[in-house]
């Protein structure tokens, strides 16, 4: 597997076909055969790269199973998230939605005694592969959490720059990247005159957009959102939803939501989960109007859950 990836990556960097894979150093530093300089030409121009439209990457789950100790929370899920689409995951509490997206960027394994089986393919890379660096996976697959959680000791600027500072060995001028991320998150106009102020001083909705800017700054291919609007009021929610529609032109987005109107508004495709299993996935319109499975119909029409 390693040699295939190496050659594929060299090709990716030189050709226009997959310009995005080359930007991340997948393997742990030790066995990297190519000079790292060759692996990072894309990230050098990351500032403007964040603005231009490029295809996102697909994420494909193959027989994904997740455990907390002995309890099986995900019971073998096969599901594909297509590039440049928003996929919503809906389902009752405890059905495994959050566990599922936490498996994608390997945050699941941060919980003591938790483990995952099966494969998560980011394009043609298995993120659970033995030589894959978990840090690179998380850089490529960003995450936004339920509650806005800006770093309390950092200013607005530092919060956005945090991802760059925490991951890269050397950083050039961070300003353009921070500004680009804040613009992408639709927050620049509101905070450009107070970048030095604490991030915790913003309103809830602004804080959540700050967190989105923070994950955009490291230039991810995929963003996972775990009920990003559940702590926000309707106006802040609307702004986040508009933002999601903007971002999907260059990023693959997976959003877990309890709010079915939200799924209907933002998602191209919707997946319905129940009891650790994927029941049905399809175009959002179809899931809500003409679902194939009776359980999906009962859930979306409010008969249970």
């Amino acid at each position, binding site marked *: 597997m390693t040699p295939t990836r190496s050659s594929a990556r060299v090709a990716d960097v030189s050709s226009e076909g997959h310009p995005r894979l080359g930007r991340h150093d997948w393997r742990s530093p030790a066995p990297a055969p190519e000079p790292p300089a060759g692996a990072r030409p894309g990230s050098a121009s990351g500032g403007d790269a964040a603005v231009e439209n490029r295809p996102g990457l697909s994420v494909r789950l193959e027989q994904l199973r997740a455990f907390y100790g002995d309890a099986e929370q995900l019971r073998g899920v096969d599901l594909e998230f297509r590039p440049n689409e928003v996929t919503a995951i809906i389902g009752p509490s405890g059905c495994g939605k959050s566990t599922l997206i936490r498996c994608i960027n390997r945050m699941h394994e941060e919980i003591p005694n938790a483990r995952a089986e099966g494969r998560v393919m980011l394009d043609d890379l298995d993120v659970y592969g033995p030589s894959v660096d978990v*840090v690179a996976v998380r850089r490529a697959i960003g995450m936004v*959490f339920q509650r806005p*959680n800006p770093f309390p*000791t950092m200013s607005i600027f530092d919060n956005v720059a*945090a991802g760059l*500072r925490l*991951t890269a060995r050397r950083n050039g001028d961070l300003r353009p990247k921070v500004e680009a991320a804040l613009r992408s998150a639709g927050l620049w106009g509101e905070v450009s005159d107070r970048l030095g102020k604490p991030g915790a001083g913003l309103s809830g909705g602004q804080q959540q957009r700050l967190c989105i800017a923070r994950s955009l700054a490291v230039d991810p291919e995929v963003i996972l959102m775990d009920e990003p609007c559940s702590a926000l009021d309707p106006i802040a929610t609307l702004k986040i939803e508009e933002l999601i529609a903007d971002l999907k032109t260059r990023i693959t987005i997976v959003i877990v939501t309890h709010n079915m109107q939200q799924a209907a508004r933002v998602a191209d495709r919707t997946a319905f989960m129940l009891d650790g299993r994927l029941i049905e996935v399809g175009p959002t319109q179809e899931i809500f109007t003409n679902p194939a499975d009776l359980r999906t119909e009962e859930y979306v029409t409010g008969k249970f859950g």
Partner: protein
Amino acid sequence: MSARGATTDPLARFAVSSARRRRDRIARGTILSATLIALVPLVLIIYYLLHRGLGSWSSSLFTTDPTGNTFFKSSSIGGIKSAILGTLEIVALASAISIPIGIGVAVWLVEYGRASRFAHTVRFFVDVLTGVPSIVFGLFIYIVLIVGTGSTYAGYKGAFALALLMLPVVIRSAEVVLVLVPAALRESALALGAPRWRMISSVVLPTALAGMVTGVLLAIARAAGETAPLLFTAGATLKTSSNLGQFMNSLPVQIYSDVTSPTTAVEHRAWGAALTLVVMILIVNLIARLVSRRSRLA
């Protein structure tokens, strides 16, 4: 209760009975007097400290070493300069040893050890150490570094004893604060692709900083007032020394030896030294309070 049926006033059942009113007054009186009784010794200590201590404060008290001439006139007994500087030096070295180690242990317990068996064992021993009487730390250093090496008292040996005393306090207070750092912050940092050590150094530690400083300062304040660990590790001496390898005076030991002196003037000096020590510790405590106000954790 029977009044309820007898009276015609419909609101009577809401009236507080006089028996309950009386019980309430007695209970309030009891806890108030307990508070007042507890205040009596506190107020007396402060009163005597200020009364006797301020009387013996003078510029020469702080600028001269004790002379040891305790049987001559009071003007020749000297001050407590060596004790003040000795305490500062010993506590500084003790802090330099115990704070990094203690915070390191706390970070390991919270971020790596978590609920493992070894982490539980470490916590158990730290708890045991917290309850060990301070003289035992002095005794331990005495056996190991003085009897064991066949050498004599030295400032750094006193600092080692104080460091042992401070260590469990630093570990426990830092651990409590680190646990308070929201898990969501750790997750966001990891989800950004931060390696664990960067997550700890750039997100967890800065967030917990104010709380950890408070705990550390309280440990320092406690160590500064200890006599027992210093008595037979740092020794008692007259001269100011900046060499931690020599005998070193300290405020608690100076107070101890002055109080046991038969000369009144020397006894007065003990009050001056005691007030000095209390003021130093008070300053540390005040700083701790100010810092904890800036804490970003609830």
